[in-house]
């Protein structure tokens, strides 16, 4: 057992933390959340230069062959800094779907993604709002060598700025009748409307994407016809781990903020951190946060090693979602009314935690997965 990061990993984390602290103050986060695009193209270019877009890509596609532990470290830092970018949608969802299922030709997009020239997203969920094959009713019907896609995708992250959608559509009935398509996001018949939600920071910005008679050439099928769910599950597993790591970073940050604040703020002539009521609260927070850290990095490590880890991922998401939610609420309580002001960062983390709770399976869904993996 060794829970230390390697020297390279520590260095990577330091670089990431310093970069985000310098380039991305929360004033910018707030500005970008209000903006239509939701991200900063300038910051995106810098991130590409740092090699974070191709972090996990093979070298031949302009990547640096990092693993999911590296990705977890990056997301941990992005969570801490509330780094708003389309990285999750473009790299973790879009590019990795291509890596999992794409042909040689389709993989040619990867170097352009790594350079920051292309934005992608995954159009998976629908009004049924579940991450299960049965919840996909968007149809792709063959017509003269092409496919015609019809349906409504909902809660699609960053679709408003995407160049390509990886779109899950049903090509026949039944559990495995789902096919992935690489769709030009500006193709005729696509209408994209951003949704107003509790958090519109970075990939929390979601859209409704309506596809009406969208024509997609057969060559743009990603992987095999009817067999889209298998590669998609892998992408979802990886995405869940990245999301957990992002939550861990955020949770750790608010806990640190709470500890610092409670040492400074004085009430009744003593620092509020000396009150047992708050000490117990923060002790509980630490248990939540460290539990989340351990479960998340365990899952990331297993992914990196190629060890099956469906159960560990589900455990990580179930625990971390609830931990993040509770810790962000406790942080506000500890800060008093100051922490409830919109201009104070605790409220940013609090809103993000609610968005992350439901993305890629809420705790109840994940616990069902755990039970299933336990053989119940």
């Amino acid at each position, binding site marked *: 057992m060794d829970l230390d990061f390697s020297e390279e990993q520590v260095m990577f984390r330091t670089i990431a933390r310093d970069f985000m602290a310098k380039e991305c103050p929360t004033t910018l986060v707030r500005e970008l959340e209000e903006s239509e695009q939701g991200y900063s193209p300038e910051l995106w270019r810098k991130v590409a230069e740092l090699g974070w877009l191709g972090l996990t890509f093979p070298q031949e596609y302009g990547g640096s062959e990092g693993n999911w532990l590296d990705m977890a470290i990056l997301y941990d830092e992005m969570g801490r800094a509330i780094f708003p970018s389309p990285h999750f949608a473009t790299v973790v969802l879009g590019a990795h779907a291509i890596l999992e299922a794409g042909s040689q030709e389709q993989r040619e997009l990867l170097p352009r993604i790594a350079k920051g020239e292309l934005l992608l997203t995954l159009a998976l969920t629908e009004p049924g709002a579940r991450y299960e094959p049965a919840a996909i009713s968007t149809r792709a019907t063959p017509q003269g060598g092409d496919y015609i896609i019809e349906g409504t995708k*909902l809660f699609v992250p960053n679709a408003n700025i995407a160049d390509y959608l990886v779109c899950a559509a049903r090509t026949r009935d039944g559990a495995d009748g789902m096919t992935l398509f690489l769709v030009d996001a500006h193709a005729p018949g696509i209408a994209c409307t951003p949704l107003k939600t509790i958090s519109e920071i970075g990939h929390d910005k979601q859209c409704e994407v309506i596809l009406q008679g969208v024509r997609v050439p057969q060559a743009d099928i990603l992987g095999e016809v009817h067999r889209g769910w298998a590669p998609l599950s892998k992408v979802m597993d990886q995405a869940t781990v990245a999301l957990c790591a992002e939550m861990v970073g955020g949770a750790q940050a608010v806990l640190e903020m709470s500890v610092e604040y409670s040492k400074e703020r004085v*009430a009744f002539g003593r620092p509020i951190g000396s009150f047992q009521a708050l000490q117990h609260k923060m002790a509980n927070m630490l248990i939540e946060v460290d539990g989340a850290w351990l479960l998340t990095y365990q899952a990331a490590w297993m992914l990196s090693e190629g060890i099956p880890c469906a159960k560990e991922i589900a455990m990580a998401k179930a625990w971390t979602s609830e931990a993040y939610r509770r810790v962000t*609420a406790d942080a506000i*309580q500890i800060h*008093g*009314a100051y922490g409830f002001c919109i201009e104070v960062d605790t409220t940013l983390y*609090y809103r993000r935690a609610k968005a992350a709770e439901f*993305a890629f399976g809420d705790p109840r869904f994940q616990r069902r997965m755990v039970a299933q993996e336990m053989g119940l």
Partner: protein
Amino acid sequence: MRFRFTEEQQRLRQEIDDYFRQEISGEFLEWLERQREGSIFSPESPEFTQKLAEKGWLGLQYSRGFQEGSIFEEEVGYWRAPVAYHNERIVGAIVQSVGSDEQKEYFLPRLASGEITIALGYTEPGCGSDLAALTTRAVPDGDEYVFNGQKTYSSRGTSANHAIVAARTNTEVPKHKGISLFLAPLDIPGVTIRPLPMMGWGADMAELFFDDVRVPAFNLIGERDRGWYHLAASLDIQRVRIGEVGVHRRMMEELVEFVKETKIDGESLSKDPFVRDMLAQRAIEVEVARLFNYRSVWAATKGPVPPHYTSMGTMYLRETSQRLAQTATEILGLYAPLKGSSKWARLKGSAEASYRAAPGYTLAGGTSEIQRNVIAQRGLGLPR
């Protein structure tokens, strides 16, 4: 023993209920829903407030009693009536209990008619829970007091025309013994109001700055230097949260309706054992919260309310509010984060709005930690 209201009180509730059902409908309701955007807080409509004032309902607590006032307040919450009223009620109670006859004559009718609207100016940047440490000064000068200092987190600070301000009038005595209460107009020279929006809690939250503000001595409420004790008594009333009980009753009804109507794979969501269990639990909690609060109302009709009664009522109700908000989001799942203005929103976005507002519940009017201290020390007699 009797866990019911008298027949006369029930008739009153029915009358109020019928009135709201009829008035808060049609286009007016649509306007209200648009303004609310799912928020649990309704906007204020001065016209509507006026109508209620004419019915005599805003002054029920003076004309008929605390129980009747509470019944009205619960219905206001349930119907999400666009009337801000809680602060006026608190301040009215202070004026009634410690004000002079002239002050009662001047303020009470104006509070009941909605002419005077109130922001609460207690908290300062340097003190919240430890309110007695406040430093805003009020120095007598002829028949006026000169104010200097700052208040913060003042709900309705940008919309009210008066504030009840706790200020230090004596620095020579222990901190609890040198505070006085003033009911001061906000549209006078030297007052600066800066909006300070909080998450999901209405846009009228503000900081109030006082620079050599001159307030007539007439506006000193109760005894000079005894303000802390008047305030403590009024906090008991402030902590009776009957209006919020109404709000939650409504939310529960809407959630039950929603799970009955919503089908997943052809099965109604209300058949899901998890959903049933969660809603049953919340329903029990809302009922207990209602009883805690009516116990305080009942106690208030007999004399001073034991302080831990209202602490229990507030703390339990508000922690229940937070759980209820969480439950609503769990039931809605991926739809929960959608705002009310979205065409995809469920329950008009109320899950999103309540979840955003939820952290404020266990802060406003005394934090959960402070309430637990009161329960332990004043209710159970545990040592400080």
